[in-house]
């Protein structure tokens, strides 16, 4: 699933490790999310959107969901 996580993270000057800590997930998961290789659960998707003060639709592209 395509998303704008990397763009939003870089805009906020966060490292992958910092974002992982903020979200309470592993850095490996941030890497997989940014690469579009892993579609997060609904609670994690909401958590990511909330962290960036965006709606879920603004962060994730539902048309590219597996």
């Amino acid at each position: 699933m395509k998303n704008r996580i990397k763009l939003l993270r870089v805009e906020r000057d966060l490292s992958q490790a910092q974002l992982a800590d903020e979200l309470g997930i592993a850095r490996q998961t941030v890497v997989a999310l940014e690469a579009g290789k892993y579609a997060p659960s609904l609670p994690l998707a909401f958590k990511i959107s909330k962290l960036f003060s965006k709606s879920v639709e603004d962060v994730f592209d539902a048309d590219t969901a597996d």
Partner: protein
Amino acid sequence: MLTEKTLRRRYFTGLFGSMIAYAIALVAVNLIAARLGSGHTSLLVILSLVPMVPIAFAVAAIVRFMNDCDELERMIQLNSLAIAFATTAFASLSYGFLEGVGFPRPSMFVVWPFMAMVWLAASLVMRLRYR
């Protein structure tokens, strides 16, 4: 919330600590059993299960890790366990049929290391898929 590094450190400390305790218990039990000799059947039965106490702590460390890890890691581990379970079932059943035609009967100790190796290999391959 604990960081990934802390979780992994706690997991490996628990797991390897248990494995070291297991190795020590195994050596100690063998030495004691050799001194006792035969004739102490009930004591030998209890002694032979003593090395399983540290293994119970290893199980607790694995369960705690599975509960604490994040959703991607949990998915990787559960998929790897499913692959290991199915592969072990396939291998053990196949070998069971081969025993019927004269193949040697291996120890029950063979099953777990086989499953653990498949679990490890599957989790490494799955982890590469998400890089």
